[in-house]
């Protein structure tokens, strides 16, 4: 029981540290600022979670988010119809990759590694120099200021609730997780493993698209390298959220919490701690290690 609360405890730990260092940050305005980039990170983490649920790994999600960002800041604004077709097409490419990986029994690490070059190349072709502009409706959406609760928190709750319902509470969600848990049993029960793999990859593509769009809605313009850090961030988020690499053991709520923890630990906490820029990356790593160490201590006590 305590183990499933670990992701939330990690988040609380980071929040307490922030509150202790700078009490003023714990406010409507403070959270809006600190969690600014949490929405795209949470969406990318959910995207990664779907492939991990099927025992695969997507090393291309970061460059894919960058590619989507470039499409969003150019075609989606200037020729919305074409933009939508391209984004839907890219989700289709993800579905095809799932089929290819299943049919040819390929290691997803390598296929997605190759695809990371493809997405990056396409992004550079679309936008050789940083620029473009987000569509107005997207800017308006991301700048939404609801009363009392900051938008990133509402968005995170919404994402977690929707994905949790879809993956943990529906019967096809169970099948999808089962493809990672015991694919042989699933196959004998008459389910198509090809279809589950396609579904998982398409969902990854869908959430990757949402992540890229949300990111551009916040940054207002795009850059081909804008999403590169998301690959490792999303994997770390899933693991922080209690997910495991094999066995279809993932948690959408945990993944969103993991993403929020990383988003907070990444820059706001470090700024408040007055860590010099040279050591910020190290502090990121250290926070990741501390959180994971706390996890080990707690689960050991539980036994």
């Amino acid at each position: 029981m305590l183990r499933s609360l670990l992701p939330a405890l990690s988040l609380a730990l980071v929040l307490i540290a922030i509150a202790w260092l700078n009490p003023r940050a714990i406010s409507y305005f403070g959270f809006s600022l600190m969690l600014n980039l949490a929405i795209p990170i949470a969406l990318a983490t959910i995207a990664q979670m779907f492939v991990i649920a099927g025992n695969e790994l997507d090393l291309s999600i970061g460059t894919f988010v960058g590619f989507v960002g470039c499409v969003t800041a150019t075609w989606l604004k200037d020729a919305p119809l074409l933009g939508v077709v391209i984004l839907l097409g890219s989700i289709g490419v993800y579905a095809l990759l799932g089929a290819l990986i299943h049919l040819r029994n390929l290691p997803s690490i390598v296929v997605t590694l190759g695809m990371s070059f493809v997405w990056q190349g396409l992004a550079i072709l679309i936008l050789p120099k940083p620029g473009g502009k987000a569509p107005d409706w997207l800017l308006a959406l991301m700048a939404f200021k609801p009363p009392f609760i900051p938008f990133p928190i509402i968005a995170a709750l919404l994402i977690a609730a929707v994905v949790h319902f879809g993956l943990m509470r529906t019967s096809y969600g169970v099948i999808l997780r089962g493809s990672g848990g015991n694919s042989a049993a699933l196959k004998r029960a008459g389910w198509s493993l090809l279809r589950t793999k396609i579904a998982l990859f398409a969902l990854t593509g869908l959430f990757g698209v949402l992540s890229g769009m949300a990111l551009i809605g916040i940054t207002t313009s795009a850059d081909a390298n804008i999403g590169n850090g998301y690959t490792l961030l999303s994997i770390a988020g899933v693991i922080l959220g209690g997910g495991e690499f094999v066995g279809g053991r993932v948690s959408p709520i945990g993944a969103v919490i993991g993403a929020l923890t990383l988003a907070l630990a990444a820059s706001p906490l470090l700024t408040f701690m007055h860590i010099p820029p040279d050591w910020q990356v190290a502090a990121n790593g250290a926070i990741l290690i501390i959180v994971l160490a706390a996890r080990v201590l707690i689960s050991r006590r539980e036994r």
Partner: protein
Amino acid sequence: MASLRTLLARPWIWSFFGALLVWLATIAFTGGYGGGGMITAALSLAVFTVIVGVGQMFVITLGPGNVDLSLPANIGLASAVAMKVMDGNDAMIAVGLLAALACGMAIGAVNYLLIWALRIPPIIATLSASFVIQSVDISYGRGLQIKPPPGFADFTNWQVFGIPVLAILTVLFTIGAGIVLQRMIYGRSVLAIGQNIRAAWLAGVSVGRTRFLTYMLSGALGGLDGALLAGYFRGANVDIGNEYLLASIAVVVIGGTSVAGGKANVPGVWGAALFLVLLLTMLNTFGVSVGVRLVLTGLIIVGVITAAGGQKALR
């Protein structure tokens, strides 16, 4: 004919085949001009990928989830350490190389300590470690402009009849790695753990020690690679190792090593490294833009693995 068939059944032959094909395509484009020089250049550059590739191969062979993501940071830090210790002095070359090796081994030890103590997947442990190493490097190597000692720079660029000496040494090293893997208790233990960690443990393989040694080995090779890169490119650099994260994983898998672990392939690492370097040379020769080059590189990696994957399914 039978011997040809056994040769074709070996997964590593395909990576060499791909490399040959890319080389032929390039010299067909240039009309036969510069074919020899291209091989020399490819051998010089492939060496650096092969060295880290072998380390990554041992790690990946340990089984699913085992991968060393700290290699780029490791290479960067070791290149700075090597240059600082050598300090442009020919007499200090050996000491500098040892320092880089020690630095790499320390990183490997830290990696395994995190995996063991925190019981986290190696992918997360080495990632967290690489963040810390990267900062140490930024802080330690800031504004470092020490040139390698002339003797060391000449050594890394030394060629005999158009064949880089470093490449010859690396071939000998990979033969050694092959013997370690297939004929020595340590190598057999790595393979056994990759095939079934529990069975290996029950059979008396010291799982912890073997994994520890493997991460140390990968770290040491990363450190060595950093020193050699700094010699070859005449200076240390924080970003010098960046491309070796993807490259080290790609050569291992294209070379026919199983990402599921338990099955390694040493010659394939050479074939895949040559293939990737020649591919880059070919696309540069064709004069395509960066974007097109990246797209083609990606599609070719996916294409190669799709073709090689079919081979695996047949058996």
